[in-house]
């Protein structure tokens, strides 16, 4: 008789996730959009210059040369949507990383240390929760705006070296600048969107910290840091992953909202939010510049939400009946 092979939590979760059609569809669509936005700009000849204006070809409907048509300045909407998507996805991922990292550390410390520290940390979370979020993020991102120029100079010098040639510096600048100008967004949104994560992590850490294996680790003489980060946190990964998946779309939505108001991503950079705003301005004469970025953006949000819901069902055996 062969002993029955045990399955890990992750195998079980994957098996459950595989049977959730909506989640798998979300995963596939997401993969296609993300791969297109990340890879297509590096393939020569596929995309046109997203900022090249060609007034002879303005307001074209979708066709063979311009797959998604052109806008009122004759720019290719497909290229713009792909480049815009790259920025939106970048902002979504980095900001989520900032936000989830703060949330995990904050919640883990509060839950593990407990007592007065816990009360203080959670009271701060309560207060931040009660602030008008959108308003503060708008203010914060505008306030941080002037630092981007300095940050760009500094980063370019750090990468290219101080004695590099003008051409080399210019080369580095072309790809550094689009990213550094986004830093205010990363900070402004990330600095206030970690609150829910911290609450979730705190509750999880509290429940795991009272388990016997933590007691065992402590009696072996392990330090607090090691117990917390090596023994407790890995056991709370499920809810963290689920919540992260659900945070990305809400942050992307946030970036798009700010950009739509003209306070987020600035031209010549564009994101889906910027494109939707431009499209909305001309939608009565030419609906395509509004339609395609909106569809791509909404599809991405859909996929992430379905995937997140699916992951929640898959990783929480109690909810998946």
């Amino acid at each position, binding site marked *: 008789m062969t002993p029955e092979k045990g399955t890990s939590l992750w195998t079980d979760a994957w098996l459950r996730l595989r049977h959730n059609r909506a989640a798998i569809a979300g995963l596939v669509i997401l993969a296609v959009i993300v791969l297109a936005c990340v890879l297509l700009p590096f393939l020569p000849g596929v995309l046109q210059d997203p900022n090249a204006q060609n007034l002879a070809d303005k307001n074209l409907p979708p066709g063979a040369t311009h797959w998604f048509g052109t806008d009122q300045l004759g720019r290719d909407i497909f290229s713009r949507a792909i480049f815009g998507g790259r920025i939106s996805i970048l902002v979504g991922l980095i900001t989520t990383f900032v936000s989830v990292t703060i949330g995990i550390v904050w919640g883990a410390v509060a839950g593990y240390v407990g007592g007065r520290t816990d009360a203080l940390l959670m009271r701060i979370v*309560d*207060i931040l929760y*009660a*602030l*008008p*979020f*959108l*308003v*503060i993020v*708008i*203010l*914060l991102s*505008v*306030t941080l*705006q*002037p630092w981007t120029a300095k940050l760009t100079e500094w980063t370019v010098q750090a990468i290219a070296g101080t004695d590099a040639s003008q051409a080399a510096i210019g080369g580095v600048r072309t790809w550094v600048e689009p990213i550094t100008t986004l830093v205010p967004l990363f900070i402004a949104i990330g600095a206030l969107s970690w609150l829910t994560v911290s609450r979730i992590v705190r509750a999880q850490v509290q429940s795991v910290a009272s388990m016997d294996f933590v007691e065992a680790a402590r009696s072996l003489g392990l330090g607090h840091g090691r117990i917390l980060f090596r023994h407790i946190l890995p056991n709370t990964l499920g809810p963290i992953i689920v919540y992260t998946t659900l945070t990305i*779309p809400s942050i992307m*939505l946030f970036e*798009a*909202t700010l950009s*739509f*108001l*003209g*306070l987020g991503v600035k031209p010549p950079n564009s994101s889906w*939010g910027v494109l*939707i*705003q431009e499209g*909305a301005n001309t*939608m*009565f004469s030419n*609906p395509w510049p*509004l339609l395609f970025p*909106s569809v791509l*953006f*909404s599809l991405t*949000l*859909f996929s992430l*939400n*379905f995937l997140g819901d699916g992951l929640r069902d898959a990783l929480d055996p109690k909810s998946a009946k």
Partner: protein
Amino acid sequence: MFKNLLSRLVQGLLVLLVLYTLTFFLVKALPGGPFQSERAMPKHIRAKMETYYGLNESLPVQYGRQLRNYLKGDLGLSFRLEGRPVSEVIAQAFPVSLQLGTLAMFLAVVIGIPAGCLAAAKRNSLIDTGAMAVAMTGVCLPAFVIGPILAECFGRGLHWFPALGWDAGWPSSWLLPAFTLGLAYAAYLSRLTRAGMLETLSQDFVRTARAKGVSPWNIIVRHCLRGGLIPAVAYLGPAFAGIISGSVVIEAVFQIPGLGRHFVKAIESRDAPMIFGPVLLYGILVILANLVTDVLGVWLNPRLRKSS
């Protein structure tokens, strides 16, 4: 209960102070100033203006003086609108935003909660799947995508409603913006209601009620509604807060002359007093909404009463 409420009130005041402090330093750190327009202002006039508005004093002095003024109810004068009192601008613009927000909230509750109940009652039916698909769409489609589409279809296409603008005496111009604003919250409320109702419906007392022959309608309305609504009601406070600040976006989409427009313009033109006014007002509204939510939650959930 009363003691609990009092402590929440004290915390609310603390939140306001934090909000004021945060806004104060953010506004001070804003790049550029209110008097740095393209048309260069003669130096002596600018110095006079800065003295008049007290901008050349030290930060702690400004912080204290401004706080005292706000406590006295003096919101100061707008820079951009050439010295119009901020309170006057708010008195004119805020009713529009409040109307919009209240109608949006009303639509969200009236659409979201019944839809969630229905979906839970007919679990796994076509109604359930359909309602949840619509709800997912509402969560995923941002207001600034839905808004232009609705304006195009129902405004310019069918001419049912005005596509843009706001007419205080003409409710048909309120409907599209309010629906656009409320949709995402209706969607989220319906998901929460469905989850809460399903949780309640799976409890033993429901089985007992069914065994006694209580009609399905009565089980939902008389037995389960109160318990099932707890998660949705807990979300009402955050929802109202989101709707109030979300109206900034809707006002931009539909070109509505509300407070959100003034706020965005004030940030663009570094009009500090006009930034503070709306921020503090939004803060107060959010705190009040959370307070009301707490009271409602205690009323719905007797277990909270004992612990407090």
